[in-house]
């Protein structure tokens, strides 16, 4: 019996985890095979794979998915590149460096819903200061509410503003971990800045870079609060990413059964993506 004692000790924790994680999952899985529109007096009906069958051909789902992929890929690339630049700035010693770091990380302390509201106020045509100054000084009209491309770009800008500091801090930890002797040797060999970046920094911080991609990839696919506050998914669905689409499906149209099917597929998409990225991180770290 003593052999099994460790397992007995694990039972409470495993039981709790099973209840918290697995019970909702199985319930959602169960619901995904039902037709249940909560506002309808119709009873819950088992419909097999009908929800999944519908999902495969659902233009709304597919468009939302593609929009989400575009958003995630563009955001991550920008945040990786800009984060690297910011990390290099943070490495340097200059007057006000401490203040710079404090200001830089402030967005991380703000709730996403507040960020969405702030950006809405800043970017709203006719009210926000940014479109005002863009128009008055550069003659450029930035229309968050009427132009799909600009609304999409604004969500990327907002996400970058929010998460760039995190990317920069992670990359900074990688840069700080590089042995000074390597950099000194490179300097003695007369390597250029570009060569230093290409052959020293990038290979040595590739683990941190992949970690940023993994972390931000998961977050970017799940983004909801900021987008909901900023654009509500508009204009014309230009920023209706999968999470926004799912929210409206379940909590506005109350299509619980189909929403559950979308949630399950959504979950698996994220798991597969994360698994692929995780494998890449592990390969690099080995």
């Amino acid at each position, binding site marked *: 019996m003593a*052999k099994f004692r*460790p*397992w007995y000790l694990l039972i409470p924790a495993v*039981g709790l985890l099973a209840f918290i994680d*697995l019970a909702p999952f199985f319930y959602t899985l169960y619901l995904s095979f039902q037709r249940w529109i909560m506002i309808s007096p119709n009873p819950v009906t088992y419909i097999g794979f009908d929800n999944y069958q519908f999902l495969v051909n659902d233009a709304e789902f597919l468009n939302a998915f593609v929009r989400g992929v575009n958003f995630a890929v563009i955001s991550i690339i920008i945040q990786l590149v800009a984060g690297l630049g910011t990390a290099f700035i943070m490495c340097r010693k200059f007057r006000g460096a401490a203040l710079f770091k404090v200001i830089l990380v402030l967005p991380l302390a703000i709730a996403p819903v507040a960020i969405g509201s702030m950006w809405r106020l800043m970017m709203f045509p006719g009210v926000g200061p940014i479109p005002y100054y863009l128009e008055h000084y550069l003659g450029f009209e930035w229309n968050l509410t009427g132009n*799909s491309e600009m609304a999409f770009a604004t969500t990327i800008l907002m996400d970058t503003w929010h998460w760039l500091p995190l990317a920069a801090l992670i990359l900074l930890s990688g840069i700080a971990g590089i042995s000074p002797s390597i950099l000194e040797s490179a300097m003695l060999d007369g390597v250029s800045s570009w060569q230093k970046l290409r052959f020293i920094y990038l290979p040595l911080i590739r683990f941190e870079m992949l970690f940023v991609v993994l972390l931000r990839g998961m977050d970017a696919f799940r983004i909801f609060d900021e987008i909901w506050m900023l654009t*509500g998914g508009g204009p014309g*669905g230009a920023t209706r990413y999968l999470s926004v689409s799912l929210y409206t499906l379940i909590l506005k*149209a109350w299509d619980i059964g189909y929403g559950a099917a979308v949630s399950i597929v959504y979950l698996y998409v994220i798991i597969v993506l994360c698994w692929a990225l995780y494998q890449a991180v592990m390969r690099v770290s080995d």
Partner: protein
Amino acid sequence: LSEEKKVDRRGYLKVGAVVVVAGAAAGGYMIGQTGKAPQTTTVTETVTETVAGTGTATQPSQYGDIEEFLSKVSGPYKGQTVRIANESTASGMWLNEFIRPRFEELTGIKIEYEFLGWDDAMRKERLDGAQKSGTYELYYIDEEEIAAEFFENGYIVDWNAFAAQHKDLLWPGYNVADLIAVKYFTYKGMLAGAPFEHFLRTIVYRSDLFNDPNEKADFKAKYGRELQPPTTYDEYAQTAEFFTRPDEDLYGHVCQPNPMSLPCDILIGLATYGVSGGGYTLGRRSSVKNGGMLDSENAIAWLTRYINLLPYGPKGVENFTWDDEGAAWSAGRVAQGWVWTENFAYIEDQEKSPKVAGNVMCTPGITEPKYYRYSTPYAYSDAGCMAMAASGPSKEAAFLWQQYATCQQTNEAQMKALKGVAPRASMLASPLADQLDAQYKTNAYAMIRRLATEGNLMGPFFPIAEEPVARDILWKHVEDAIAGKATPKEVLSAAATEIDDKWKTMGWPDLKGY
């Protein structure tokens, strides 16, 4: 753990098996709960907002009999709490600020309002109703189809039946039939609740601008007719164009096309183009080929008009909610546009809106003569009631609050304070209505009375419980038209087809009980 006792791969598999079995057991339990809503924790936040300039504290002497009655019958319910999920409407906030304290003093019953956006209010009410959690005693309901849905799903109780069973708690002087909006909340003979607010969404204009001699002369020179409040959409479009002057930060039109608010604009506007009930039939069909009108010529003409008017609105109008619309009004940026008259007290605040105060006038609404078959004006009549939650533990206390919040004396104070809310027919017919119109110069009560007398108060929604499903589909498509990605004809055609398909998959017309 010693080296030999370290958990190996097989051990992990065993743990995994335990986890799966536990999960399956939990899943089995949940499956046993078929039909019940997922258990969610709702975070409640009571917001107490001040409705600036909307009234004065109620004097105890005003209430006479009902106060004596409440003091007498409320004894057994003293100490109970009535929780209300309410949209943050002007009337709701006014009741909370000015009427609630006196009721609490009289009865010892505590009233707790939770003010929310419309969407959030509906979400919390539905989840509370489905879970029967008893968080709220009263649900805010403002549309016929919500009342239908809540009755069909057993979330609320019939007010009439409750009153009949609790005659001892019904103040003898209380006349529920006098409340104008009772008809909107009556479903299959059942009444969802006593309506505490009733007002218009109609076209409102700035009388100082419309009566300005220079403006009149300029308008006549440009359009060859007198400048006057519009009665048709063509006239409205002309005045909208005339008053749109971005250099002066003045605009000729305002509405609320934000996805959260868009359905109101679309469904209300459709009715003025002769498409009632949002273009759906009671048999749950929306396309013309199936007997509906959502993709009809009338509906396409309305949406085209709606989109063509947007350039006359302030910048960003494509995403305006009511809050944005109201703010534009109170800032004096708008010469004419739609207004919910319950907000007159807000947009006409003497201190905050000096440019606008005393200068807004109601019209009885505009219609499109080519499509709307009657020659009379037509405006949307909006209302809200507090419905008793079936799972609410303090129904009797809630019943007493409903009466106090909607009694004649409260309504009188409400009309004075909010300038555009008229819950009772008798109050509309009283000299008070004319007196208030003369005082506030809004003409709101005369307009409500006229439309009510002529039978042109519009309740655009049919009591279709599944309407929110259609609404969700509709706004997604209409948004595409507003963003210029598709034409009105394309989006309405696509929406009608999708809605019909959705209702078919929901089992209609096989649903029972309609």
